[in-house]
């Protein structure tokens, strides 16, 4: 009798736990966000997608800024030294508009492509940057976590911008020339080991600049396509 009762109770409990977890799992994956109104996913508006992406890029740039400031505090006495600038960055090969006029004159497709290229180019270097920071005891855990976070954020940002591009293509805002595949330039930039010799600080410096670029380009794109709110 005791055994029967215990067994029944445990069965019930197991069933309940399973139901609970299943429901939570289904809830988590219940409504994935997608750009197209395919079955079973939330459809977000383009404005909403843009907002999310821009917020994400702003956060990324903020983290890179913080890390860079920390580095400068501990390791680099002077600021903005041209010696450490831009030529070192492995993304210099990617043609990016350097001024407001240039950016505004650039076509939407080109701008989107530039953004994607930049994001692709930084995936690997950031990952390695995080690895190097974690291994060296000079950096505290706070910085190491930030580096990891930065790396993840770039990854997510890239996915997000891809979705935005997809949506724009669906809506006909941009032509279908923007491929989700990585362009040869970007591939070159990421595959090349140009970034390997770079110092951590230079990486940070370059990434800080490039994240600002990404943020700026996204905002310009958004305000050009959807000028309603937040511009």
């Amino acid at each position, binding site marked *: 009798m005791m055994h029967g009762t215990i067994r029944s109770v445990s069965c019930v409990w197991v069933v309940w736990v399973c139901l609970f977890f299943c429901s939570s799992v289904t809830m988590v994956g219940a409504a994935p966000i997608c750009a197209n109104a395919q079955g079973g996913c939330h459809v977000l508006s383009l404005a909403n997608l843009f907002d999310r992406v821009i917020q994400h890029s702003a956060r990324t740039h903020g983290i890179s800024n913080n890390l860079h400031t920390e580095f400068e505090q501990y390791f680099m006495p002077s600021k903005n030294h*041209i010696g450490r600038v831009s030529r070192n960055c492995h993304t210099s090969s990617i043609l990016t508009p350097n001024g407001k006029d240039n950016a505004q004159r650039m076509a939407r497709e080109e701008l989107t492509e530039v953004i994607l290229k930049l994001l692709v180019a930084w995936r690997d270097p950031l990952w390695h940057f995080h690895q190097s920071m974690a291994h060296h005891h000079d950096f505290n855990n706070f910085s190491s976590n930030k580096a990891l976070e930065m790396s993840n954020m770039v990854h997510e940002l890239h996915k997000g911008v891809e979705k935005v591009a997809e949506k724009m293509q669906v809506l006909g805002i941009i032509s279908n020339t923007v491929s989700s595949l990585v362009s040869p330039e970007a591939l070159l930039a990421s595959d090349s080991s140009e970034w390997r010799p770079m110092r951590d600080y230079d990486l940070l410096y370059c990434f800080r600049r490039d994240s*600002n670029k990404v943020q700026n380009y996204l*905002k310009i794109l958004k305000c050009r396509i959807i000028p309603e709110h937040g511009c």
Partner: protein
Amino acid sequence: MLWKAQSRRSDWTGQAAVKRRRTFRACFSGWPSDEVVKSRSAVSLWRFKRKTSKITPPEPHITECISRDQATFQCWWSPGNFHNLSSPGALRLFYINSLASEWKECPKYVHPNRECFFDNNHTSIWIPYCMQLRGQNNVTYYNEEDCFRVENIVRPDPPVSLNWTLLNISPSGLNYDVMVNWEAPPSADVKTGWMRIEYEIQYRAGNTTKWDALEMQRQTQQTIFGLHVGKEYEVHIRCRMRSFVRFGEFSDPIFIQVISSKGSTFPLTLVLVFGITGVLILVMLIVSSQQRRLMMILLPPVPAPKIKGIDPELLKKGKLDDLNFSSTGGGLGGPPTYATDFYQDELWVEFIEVDAEDAGTGEKEDNQGSDTQRLLDVPQPISHHMNIGFSNAVSFPDSDSGRASCYDPDVPDQDTLMATLLPGQPEDGEVKTSPAPERLLIRTQTAGPQTWFNTDFYAQVSNVMPTGGVVLSPGQQLRIQESTSGTEEEPQQGKEHKGSEDSEEEKEKEEQFQLLVVDPEGGRQAAESNTPQMFAPPSSPIPGEGYQTILPQPAETEPAATAEDGQSPYILPDSPQSQVFARVADYTVVQELNSQHSLLLNPPPRQSPPACRPQHPLKALPSMPVGYITPDLLGSLSP
């Protein structure tokens, strides 16, 4: 320009960094020569710390480079201690960036400010710029610190159109909230998203020096909570690029002040509230302490029927037989009509004086008296005052009270007469009153001063007046006054049997009263006398008369009177203390009652109108020629 990126190192001490920088520079052919670098190395070392101090170097140097809109920028220089180079044109500014291969001169000089302006065409973002000053003879003053990227030197202009609106004021009137709003600086291109700006509001109270900063705000409005009424606040705002550190200039301050309008009324309201509360508490205390007295004043008890000499309990029970009536002759078989309900004890019982000229004046405790009076509404003889008064001094010595005199000394008895049951009220021959409710009507004879006296139920007739009036036994001090009203009535009534009304009054309690039944006038209906022939205590004592007069009833009986109940013109209330029969010497046999229940001691002459005939011949009486009417006989005398 060949760059050799050095291998990554984790060792970043200051000195090593300086060394590496030098190595870099050495490889860069376009950069300044080593001599310059060396001369500056001391300075760079000296500027090791990130937070550089603001000590100006002696040589000419670039003071600052600022971009306002991330599309153009300006640079300022200073000659330092080299005052010979302070003249415009002595120093020239050269710049280089990664796009250019050589140093270029400033595109636009603003000499009065020692400023160099770089317009859109000469500005590129995200690429490094370096500045250089050159004097005559190609002397170059270069500092490696003067290199920057334009996005890092952006300091936006201050926001514009700063103003505030009042959101609300706290209920206490001491604090308030304001909403501050502004607009982005016009130079910053936020519409296209080129610049993303965040704002910082700072405010301070007028007399402090420390500014309070609020959170960075991305919207163009912000709420400031908890400002104090009456204080003046100063508010200004600045902004910067998001994710960057350099703020622009502060805007011009605005001043916020809210003057309290209800500050003065707030304590006044408090005072009022507390005052009213205190007063209420005081009133309640008074009420609770004086509860009984207040109840007496506000809600006086309903007067119970109380006739002097009559036990009110008997009245309530209706046992009229038990009532000690005396000589009612007129047949008190019916429920006796009591003229008045007199209260001797209650102080509030007062006389009712009705002035003939102005009818209805005077106060009355009982409506019936004045109502009857008004109903009767007889045009009074001018000399007469109809007084209907009730007072504790009126009428009958209360058996309960023990007072011999019913008269209240305070009562102006002179002018007020008791209401009387006298049917022979001269005035109201015609007026009929509804008898039943007029129990308390006591008509006072207004013909001259008439006094009434408390009467007992028993009265011994001692004499008979020639006019037909009956004089009751003199066992008490009686005060009788001849009433002249009877004479007046005569012409009106033309009745043979007219008697002057005698009214006797007696004030002192110790005096024993005998009820004077008066039905003097013919035609005078017992209407008004339907009120039981109870006599109000006379207003003025009449000394010395020891007898009472009973006036014969008028022969006529008016129909209304007959309809009345309890028409007996007189009633003889009992006065227990009166020893009516103590000293009675003579008495007369009541022969008959007339129609109005009047006691006829002498049979009326035959010539008298038959109306005078009492309706209630005392058939039984002759059987008892001599003697008093005893109470048991009284019952047989019912009409």
